[in-house]
């Protein structure tokens, strides 16, 4: 299959940005006008209305939980990275909703020791079962290397949401959660995604494998073409679905329904023993590899891969402008990612 060329992009090389949400002009498709606003800000309602929209999303999440809770042994599988957002999500589901949760963490080989401790502390404090899945290290390193070199593993628009390395990892994690949900007969999966990382309507996503087979099979084929047949075991869900009592799963992202600042999130999870890691690089609270993804993405495309989520938080009033500017300016340097690049097999001239 020939990959079709995307529409013309503005590309790196400009520091211009939306005056309200700081989305950089280098991000394709954002169309900053003469007034200095991007197309999202021109169409965006005031923060109060955004907060009301989030309340509506929360009502949708509540409805799914009310309708599908009560499964045995777990109500919900939580995609638990050990970072701040998934830790808060787990706390919310256990303490506010009283759900029986299974927390699943994927060890991609780049979890810091502090992250592993945070996973253990949070799950122990909440009394939650926790499993750690460690995919074959050779496979994931090859996946990261290929992702860094060839962005055609993902749709052209995926560069707006995340680095190619992160997008591949997220696809693998999402697939693993789906498989486990079908195998356990657990009808709900919860993620800790925030606005900008997934569409806002991703607060509730109804997964029906039969009906969505076409999109999934294209994704599986892309990974198989790039990484070989072994990729099927990480990206296909057919056998798990075939043996399951369930035919559909609801995926919820509770953070999309909340109006909460990062400081408030951290204050809440610190009560569980969560401690801000000091060994996960400068752009993440759970994964050391993020820095490599951010470095390559920002160098290649001219904008920070977190720009979209930061812009969402600015529009919603859950992040201060100075904090947003500091996050966008926090870019790893080549020396920071050299060791990571070597670990995934990137030659010096490949990143």
């Amino acid at each position, binding site marked *: *299959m020939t990959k*079709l060329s995307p529409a*013309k992009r503005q590309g790196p090389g400009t520091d211009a940005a939306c005056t309200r949400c700081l989305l950089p002009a280098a991000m394709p498709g954002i169309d900053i006008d003469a007034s200095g606003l991007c197309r999202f800000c021109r169409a965006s309602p005031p923060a109060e209305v955004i907060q009301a929209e989030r309340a509506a999303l929360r009502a949708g999440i509540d409805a799914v939980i009310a309708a599908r809770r009560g499964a045995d042994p777990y109500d919900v599988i939580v995609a638990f990275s050990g970072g701040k957002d998934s830790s808060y999500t787990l706390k919310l589901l256990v303490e506010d909703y009283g759900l029986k949760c299974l927390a699943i963490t994927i060890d991609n080989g780049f979890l810091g020791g502090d992250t592993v401790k945070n996973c253990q502390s949070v799950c122990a404090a909440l009394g939650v079962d926790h499993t750690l899945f460690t995919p074959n290290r050779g496979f994931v390193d090859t996946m990261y290397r290929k992702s860094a070199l060839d962005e055609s593993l*993902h*749709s052209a628009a995926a560069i707006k949401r995340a680095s190619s390395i992160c997008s591949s990892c997220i696809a693998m994690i999402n697939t693993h959660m789906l498989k486990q949900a079908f195998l356990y007969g657990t009808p709900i999966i919860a993620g800790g995604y925030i606005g900008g990382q997934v*569409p806002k309507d991703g607060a509730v996503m109804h997964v029906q494998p039969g009906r969505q087979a*076409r999109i999934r099979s*294209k994704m599986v084929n892309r990974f198989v073409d790039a990484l070989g047949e072994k990729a099927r075991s990480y990206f296909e869900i057919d056998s798990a679905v075939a043996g399951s009592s369930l035919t559909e799963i609801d995926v919820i992202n509770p953070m999309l329904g909340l109006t909460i600042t990062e400081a408030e999130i951290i204050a809440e999870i610190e009560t569980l023993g969560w401690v801000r890691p000091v060994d996960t690089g400068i752009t993440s609270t759970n994964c050391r590899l993020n820095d490599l993804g951010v470095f390559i993405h920002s160098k290649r495309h001219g904008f920070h891969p977190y720009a979209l989520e930061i812009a969402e938080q600015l529009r919603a009033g859950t992040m201060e402008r100075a904090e947003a500017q500091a996050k966008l300016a926090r870019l790893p340097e080549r020396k920071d990612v050299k060791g990571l690049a070597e670990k995934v097999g990137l030659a010096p001239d490949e990143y």
Partner: protein
Amino acid sequence: MDSSGIQARVSAFITHEFLVDFSNEVNAETDLFEEELIDSFGFIELVSFIEAEFQVKISDDDMASPDIGSLAGIVRLIEARMADMAVTDDQALTG
């Protein structure tokens, strides 16, 4: 709104959101999923856009229809759902 008006709005959304250039190798009949120009998150964004912009409801059957994959098919789907709603409105008025 006529077909060309609907097509212009959907086309502009797809171009901006998914970086698809309809003046290039892609045309209105191109299957955007088959060509991997829209992924699963993009699918959610597309359906949300259609429902909000045209005030129609896209059913599970619509989402499984081949029509949802191409610009021309999406326009057909929107027109069909708008026609359904017009019938429902007429029935409400006369019923």
